[in-house]
């Protein structure tokens, strides 16, 4: 499978995520689009790790080449889980104060 297919696919998903962040005003949907972008990057990292593995099949220690990419994906998932817990807490606090999830209520920090 050529690597370009995976690059194009993850770019399409990433740009859908960007379009979601730019066009929606619901804070939770914006947050979900950020998760979408993170997943597009994860997919690309795994594809590149397999590409790296395929390119170094004749190297002497090729058995572990490319596993750093997959470990990085694991760490991205861990950070995303932590980020979601804090971010949703912020959204709940904002909803408690303004009774809305509209992102335009957050355009100023005072009041």
């Amino acid at each position, binding site marked *: 499978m050529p690597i370009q297919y995976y690059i194009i696919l993850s770019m399409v998903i990433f740009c859908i995520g960007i379009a979601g962040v730019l066009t929606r005003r*619901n804070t939770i949907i914006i947050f979900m689009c950020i998760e979408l972008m993170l*997943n597009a990057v994860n997919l690309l990292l*795994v*594809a590149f790790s397999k590409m790296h593995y395929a390119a170094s099949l004749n190297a002497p220690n090729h058995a572990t080449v490319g596993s750093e990419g997959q470990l990085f994906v694991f760490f991205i998932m861990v950070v995303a889980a932590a980020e979601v817990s804090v971010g949703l807490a912020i959204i709940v606090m904002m909803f408690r104060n303004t009774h809305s999830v509209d992102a335009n209520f957050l355009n100023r920090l005072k009041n």
Partner: protein
Amino acid sequence: MSATHILFWFLSALAVVSALMVLFSKNPVHSVLWLIAVFFAISGHYILMNAQFLAIVNIIVYAGAIMVLFLFVIMLMNLNKESEPRKNVWMKLAGAISAGSLLMILVSLVGQATEVSHKTLIMKDGNIGLIKSLGKILFTQYVVPFELTSILFLSAMVGAVVIGKKD
């Protein structure tokens, strides 16, 4: 056209269509469900690339934990189609145009890049994605970042409790 190609195109179409439906759904609960479909499609891609550990972790962490948290918050706030904030149509158009032009630039860049033009990736064989090899590297070479993530989790937990506490 082998079975791998058919699965690749099917999973790609599923991922892109579900990602678009995340955007276009008016009801936030439907958005969450479509996002879970995206995660399952991406997990299918991981299995196709023989990254079994990440496929399982993706389903457990993303589709299992994070999306349930999203769903829980949405149901706690009782959001539905009526409470959805509306954005004016020019802002939507501007957002769609800027994301589309970014996509166009990136795609043309990939088309021109000579670094990746003849590279392929091995789909089936290669055991770098199995738990055995990943775990061996994680607990020898990358044990310090792994322990740092536990501190990150602890601070995130404390932060979530402090922020979410009713004052």
